[in-house]
Protein backbone atom coordinates (compact mmCIF):
# COMPACT_ATOMS: atom_id res chain seq x y z
CA UNK A 1 0.00 0.00 0.00
CA UNK A 2 1.09 3.57 -0.62
CA UNK A 3 0.65 6.44 1.78
CA UNK A 4 -2.60 7.31 0.03
CA UNK A 5 -3.93 3.82 0.66
CA UNK A 6 -3.84 3.06 -3.06
CA UNK A 7 -2.79 -0.44 -4.04
CA UNK A 8 -0.04 -0.31 -6.70
CA UNK A 9 -1.24 -3.62 -8.14
CA UNK A 10 -4.65 -2.10 -8.86
CA UNK A 11 -3.64 1.35 -10.03
CA UNK A 12 -3.22 0.24 -13.62
CA UNK A 13 -6.59 0.64 -15.42
CA UNK A 14 -6.45 -2.79 -17.07
CA UNK A 15 -5.94 -4.54 -13.76
CA UNK A 16 -8.54 -2.42 -12.00
CA UNK A 17 -11.09 -3.17 -14.75
CA UNK A 18 -10.24 -6.88 -14.60
CA UNK A 19 -10.79 -6.89 -10.86
CA UNK A 20 -14.06 -4.98 -11.34
CA UNK A 21 -15.33 -7.69 -13.68
CA UNK A 22 -14.18 -10.58 -11.54
CA UNK A 23 -15.54 -9.05 -8.34
CA UNK A 24 -19.07 -8.86 -9.74
CA UNK A 25 -19.47 -12.61 -10.31
CA UNK A 26 -18.74 -15.99 -8.78
CA UNK A 27 -16.46 -16.84 -11.71
CA UNK A 28 -15.87 -15.31 -15.13
CA UNK A 29 -14.64 -16.83 -18.38
CA UNK A 30 -11.31 -15.57 -19.72
CA UNK A 31 -12.90 -14.71 -23.08
CA UNK A 32 -15.54 -12.50 -21.46
CA UNK A 33 -12.89 -10.35 -19.76
CA UNK A 34 -10.85 -10.20 -22.98
CA UNK A 35 -13.87 -9.13 -25.05
CA UNK A 36 -15.15 -6.61 -22.51
CA UNK A 37 -11.79 -4.89 -22.13
CA UNK A 38 -10.79 -5.37 -25.80
CA UNK A 39 -7.43 -6.84 -24.84
CA UNK A 40 -5.32 -9.43 -26.60
CA UNK A 41 -4.95 -12.90 -25.08
CA UNK A 42 -1.33 -12.27 -24.18
CA UNK A 43 -2.01 -8.87 -22.64
CA UNK A 44 -4.84 -10.22 -20.49
CA UNK A 45 -2.69 -13.19 -19.48
CA UNK A 46 -0.03 -10.76 -18.25
CA UNK A 47 -2.56 -8.83 -16.18
CA UNK A 48 -4.00 -12.04 -14.73
CA UNK A 49 -0.54 -13.31 -13.87
CA UNK A 50 0.27 -10.09 -12.02
CA UNK A 51 -3.01 -10.24 -10.12
CA UNK A 52 -2.51 -13.93 -9.42
CA UNK A 53 1.01 -13.30 -8.10
CA UNK A 54 -0.46 -10.72 -5.74
CA UNK A 55 -2.91 -13.36 -4.51
CA UNK A 56 -5.94 -11.41 -5.74
CA UNK A 57 -7.33 -13.94 -8.21
CA UNK A 58 -7.27 -17.66 -8.97
CA UNK A 59 -7.76 -19.41 -12.28
CA UNK A 60 -9.22 -22.84 -12.98
CA UNK A 61 -9.66 -24.75 -16.22
CA UNK A 62 -12.61 -26.90 -17.21
CA UNK A 63 -13.51 -29.01 -20.24
CA UNK A 64 -11.42 -30.42 -23.04
CA UNK A 65 -10.67 -29.51 -26.62
CA UNK A 66 -12.87 -26.80 -28.10
CA UNK A 67 -14.99 -26.61 -24.93
CA UNK A 68 -11.97 -25.91 -22.72
CA UNK A 69 -12.45 -22.79 -20.64
CA UNK A 70 -10.37 -20.78 -18.23
CA UNK A 71 -12.35 -19.39 -15.32
CA UNK A 72 -11.15 -16.49 -13.20
CA UNK A 73 -12.20 -16.16 -9.55
CA UNK A 74 -11.51 -13.38 -7.07
CA UNK A 75 -9.99 -14.37 -3.74
CA UNK A 76 -10.98 -12.98 -0.34
CA UNK A 77 -7.70 -11.13 -0.26
CA UNK A 78 -8.43 -9.66 -3.68
CA UNK A 79 -11.92 -8.57 -2.67
CA UNK A 80 -10.55 -6.88 0.46
CA UNK A 81 -7.80 -5.17 -1.53
CA UNK A 82 -10.28 -3.93 -4.11
CA UNK A 83 -12.57 -2.53 -1.41
CA UNK A 84 -9.65 -0.77 0.26
CA UNK A 85 -8.49 0.61 -3.09
CA UNK A 86 -11.99 1.88 -3.89
CA UNK A 87 -12.17 3.52 -0.46
CA UNK A 88 -8.84 5.23 -1.08
CA UNK A 89 -10.07 6.49 -4.46
CA UNK A 90 -13.23 7.76 -2.80
CA UNK A 91 -11.14 9.63 -0.22
CA UNK A 92 -9.20 11.29 -3.02
CA UNK A 93 -12.47 12.58 -4.46
CA UNK A 94 -13.91 13.65 -1.12
CA UNK A 95 -10.91 14.46 1.07
CA UNK A 96 -11.45 14.83 4.79
CA UNK A 97 -11.74 18.44 5.95
CA UNK A 98 -8.75 20.03 7.60
CA UNK A 99 -8.74 19.63 11.40
CA UNK A 100 -10.20 22.50 13.37
CA UNK A 101 -8.01 24.60 15.67
CA UNK A 102 -9.26 22.77 18.77
CA UNK A 103 -8.27 19.44 17.22
CA UNK A 104 -4.90 20.83 16.30
CA UNK A 105 -4.45 21.84 19.92
CA UNK A 106 -4.62 18.24 21.06
CA UNK A 107 -8.26 17.12 21.01
CA UNK A 108 -8.78 13.90 19.02
CA UNK A 109 -10.45 14.45 15.61
CA UNK A 110 -14.02 13.24 15.16
CA UNK A 111 -14.06 10.04 13.04
CA UNK A 112 -15.80 10.50 9.71
CA UNK A 113 -17.48 7.59 7.89
CA UNK A 114 -15.82 6.66 4.62
CA UNK A 115 -18.26 6.86 1.68
CA UNK A 116 -18.29 3.60 -0.28
CA UNK A 117 -19.03 3.21 -3.98
CA UNK A 118 -22.40 1.72 -4.80
CA UNK A 119 -22.14 -2.02 -5.41
CA UNK A 120 -22.90 -2.69 -9.05
Amino acid sequence: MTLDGLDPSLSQPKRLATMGIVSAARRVDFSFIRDQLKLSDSDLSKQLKALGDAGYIETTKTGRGPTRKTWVLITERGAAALDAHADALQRLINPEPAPEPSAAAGAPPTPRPIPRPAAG
Partner: protein
Amino acid sequence: MESNGFGAEPDAGRETPQSPTQTADEARRSLDLLKTTRHATEIEGALPLTPLWYGAALATTIAASGLYGHFEHWLWLVATITAIAVMSMHYVRTVKVHPRRSRRSVTTNLIVFFICWMVLAAWGVFTSTRADEPGFATLAFGAWLATTLALVGAIALMNRWHQHSLAR
Protein backbone atom coordinates in the same frame (compact mmCIF):
# COMPACT_ATOMS: atom_id res chain seq x y z
CA MET B 1 -7.28 -2.19 -34.07
CA GLU B 2 -10.16 -0.81 -32.07
CA SER B 3 -9.16 1.20 -29.03
CA ASN B 4 -9.80 -0.44 -25.70
CA GLY B 5 -10.16 2.91 -23.97
CA PHE B 6 -7.21 2.40 -21.65
CA GLY B 7 -4.91 4.77 -23.52
CA ALA B 8 -1.33 4.09 -24.52
CA GLU B 9 0.39 1.60 -22.29
CA PRO B 10 3.57 0.52 -24.02
CA ASP B 11 4.32 -2.29 -21.59
CA ALA B 12 1.28 -3.59 -19.78
CA GLY B 13 3.28 -5.96 -17.62
CA ARG B 14 5.54 -3.28 -16.16
CA GLU B 15 4.53 -1.56 -12.95
CA THR B 16 3.76 2.10 -13.52
CA PRO B 17 5.23 4.39 -10.90
CA GLN B 18 2.62 5.50 -8.40
CA SER B 19 2.08 9.19 -8.10
CA PRO B 20 1.48 10.32 -4.51
CA THR B 21 -0.58 13.21 -5.85
CA GLN B 22 -3.14 11.31 -7.89
CA THR B 23 -5.77 13.81 -8.79
CA ALA B 24 -9.43 13.59 -7.93
CA ASP B 25 -10.26 13.39 -11.64
CA GLU B 26 -8.13 10.29 -12.06
CA ALA B 27 -9.73 8.76 -8.98
CA ARG B 28 -13.19 9.52 -10.35
CA ARG B 29 -12.30 7.90 -13.68
CA SER B 30 -11.03 4.81 -11.88
CA LEU B 31 -14.22 4.51 -9.84
CA ASP B 32 -16.34 4.99 -12.98
CA LEU B 33 -14.35 2.23 -14.69
CA LEU B 34 -14.90 -0.05 -11.72
CA LYS B 35 -18.64 0.66 -11.71
CA THR B 36 -19.01 0.15 -15.48
CA THR B 37 -17.19 -3.17 -15.53
CA ARG B 38 -19.15 -4.48 -12.55
CA HIS B 39 -22.42 -3.43 -14.17
CA ALA B 40 -21.57 -5.16 -17.47
CA THR B 41 -20.63 -8.37 -15.65
CA GLU B 42 -23.81 -8.41 -13.59
CA ILE B 43 -25.94 -7.97 -16.72
CA GLU B 44 -24.12 -10.77 -18.52
CA GLY B 45 -24.54 -13.02 -15.50
CA ALA B 46 -28.22 -12.26 -15.01
CA LEU B 47 -29.25 -12.16 -18.65
CA PRO B 48 -26.84 -13.84 -21.08
CA LEU B 49 -27.55 -13.36 -24.79
CA THR B 50 -29.86 -16.19 -25.80
CA PRO B 51 -30.39 -17.49 -29.36
CA LEU B 52 -33.91 -17.12 -30.76
CA TRP B 53 -34.28 -20.86 -31.34
CA TYR B 54 -34.55 -21.18 -27.57
CA GLY B 55 -38.12 -19.90 -28.07
CA ALA B 56 -39.13 -22.82 -30.28
CA ALA B 57 -37.35 -25.32 -28.05
CA LEU B 58 -39.04 -23.92 -24.94
CA ALA B 59 -42.45 -23.93 -26.65
CA THR B 60 -41.88 -27.55 -27.70
CA THR B 61 -40.99 -28.47 -24.14
CA ILE B 62 -44.09 -26.77 -22.76
CA ALA B 63 -46.37 -28.23 -25.42
CA ALA B 64 -44.90 -31.71 -25.06
CA SER B 65 -45.36 -31.55 -21.29
CA GLY B 66 -48.96 -30.41 -21.75
CA LEU B 67 -49.76 -33.01 -24.40
CA TYR B 68 -48.03 -35.88 -22.62
CA GLY B 69 -50.52 -38.71 -22.13
CA HIS B 70 -52.86 -37.75 -24.96
CA PHE B 71 -51.02 -39.24 -27.93
CA GLU B 72 -47.88 -41.28 -28.49
CA HIS B 73 -46.13 -41.10 -25.14
CA TRP B 74 -42.62 -41.72 -26.37
CA LEU B 75 -42.83 -39.02 -29.04
CA TRP B 76 -43.61 -36.24 -26.57
CA LEU B 77 -41.13 -37.56 -24.07
CA VAL B 78 -38.36 -37.61 -26.70
CA ALA B 79 -39.29 -34.10 -27.85
CA THR B 80 -39.17 -32.78 -24.28
CA ILE B 81 -35.90 -34.45 -23.34
CA THR B 82 -34.22 -33.48 -26.63
CA ALA B 83 -35.24 -29.82 -26.35
CA ILE B 84 -34.07 -29.55 -22.74
CA ALA B 85 -30.82 -31.42 -23.48
CA VAL B 86 -29.95 -29.25 -26.50
CA MET B 87 -30.64 -26.02 -24.62
CA SER B 88 -28.68 -27.20 -21.59
CA MET B 89 -25.68 -28.23 -23.69
CA HIS B 90 -25.70 -24.93 -25.52
CA TYR B 91 -25.91 -23.01 -22.26
CA VAL B 92 -23.03 -24.95 -20.68
CA ARG B 93 -20.85 -24.39 -23.75
CA THR B 94 -21.54 -20.67 -24.05
CA VAL B 95 -21.98 -19.42 -20.48
CA LYS B 96 -19.31 -16.85 -19.64
CA VAL B 97 -20.29 -15.49 -16.26
CA HIS B 98 -21.51 -17.39 -13.24
CA PRO B 99 -23.34 -14.77 -11.17
CA ARG B 100 -23.14 -14.54 -7.42
CA ARG B 101 -26.05 -16.05 -5.58
CA SER B 102 -28.15 -13.18 -4.38
CA ARG B 103 -31.72 -12.47 -3.35
CA ARG B 104 -32.24 -10.65 -6.65
CA SER B 105 -31.25 -13.65 -8.80
CA VAL B 106 -33.52 -15.93 -6.78
CA THR B 107 -36.43 -13.53 -7.35
CA THR B 108 -35.73 -13.43 -11.08
CA ASN B 109 -35.66 -17.23 -11.29
CA LEU B 110 -38.92 -17.49 -9.34
CA ILE B 111 -40.64 -15.07 -11.73
CA VAL B 112 -39.43 -17.02 -14.80
CA PHE B 113 -40.50 -20.31 -13.18
CA PHE B 114 -43.92 -18.85 -12.39
CA ILE B 115 -44.45 -17.67 -15.98
CA CYS B 116 -43.42 -21.09 -17.40
CA TRP B 117 -45.73 -22.79 -14.93
CA MET B 118 -48.66 -20.59 -15.97
CA VAL B 119 -48.05 -21.33 -19.67
CA LEU B 120 -47.80 -25.05 -18.94
CA ALA B 121 -51.02 -24.92 -16.89
CA ALA B 122 -52.79 -23.16 -19.77
CA TRP B 123 -51.59 -25.88 -22.15
CA GLY B 124 -52.78 -28.56 -19.72
CA VAL B 125 -56.26 -27.06 -19.50
CA PHE B 126 -56.37 -26.63 -23.27
CA THR B 127 -55.39 -30.23 -24.04
CA SER B 128 -57.62 -31.78 -21.40
CA THR B 129 -60.75 -29.98 -22.63
CA ARG B 130 -60.22 -30.01 -26.41
CA ALA B 131 -58.29 -33.20 -27.15
CA ASP B 132 -61.34 -35.09 -28.49
CA GLU B 133 -62.63 -32.31 -30.73
CA PRO B 134 -62.14 -32.49 -34.49
CA GLY B 135 -59.32 -30.25 -35.72
CA PHE B 136 -57.49 -30.44 -32.43
CA ALA B 137 -54.14 -30.99 -34.17
CA THR B 138 -54.55 -27.69 -36.04
CA LEU B 139 -55.50 -25.92 -32.83
CA ALA B 140 -52.56 -27.49 -31.02
CA PHE B 141 -50.15 -26.41 -33.76
CA GLY B 142 -51.59 -22.89 -33.66
CA ALA B 143 -51.13 -22.76 -29.90
CA TRP B 144 -47.55 -24.03 -30.22
CA LEU B 145 -46.83 -21.43 -32.89
CA ALA B 146 -48.32 -18.65 -30.78
CA THR B 147 -46.24 -19.78 -27.78
CA THR B 148 -43.13 -19.92 -29.97
CA LEU B 149 -43.66 -16.43 -31.37
CA ALA B 150 -44.36 -15.00 -27.92
CA LEU B 151 -41.18 -16.56 -26.51
CA VAL B 152 -39.08 -15.52 -29.53
CA GLY B 153 -40.38 -11.97 -29.13
CA ALA B 154 -39.56 -11.97 -25.43
CA ILE B 155 -36.04 -13.29 -26.08
CA ALA B 156 -35.46 -10.73 -28.85
CA LEU B 157 -36.54 -7.90 -26.53
CA MET B 158 -34.35 -9.14 -23.69
CA ASN B 159 -31.34 -9.55 -26.01
CA ARG B 160 -31.84 -6.04 -27.34
CA TRP B 161 -32.08 -4.60 -23.86
CA HIS B 162 -28.99 -6.60 -22.88
CA GLN B 163 -26.93 -5.30 -25.79
CA HIS B 164 -28.14 -1.78 -25.17
CA SER B 165 -27.18 -2.00 -21.50
CA LEU B 166 -23.71 -3.32 -22.28
CA ALA B 167 -23.17 -0.66 -24.94
CA ARG B 168 -23.79 2.21 -22.49
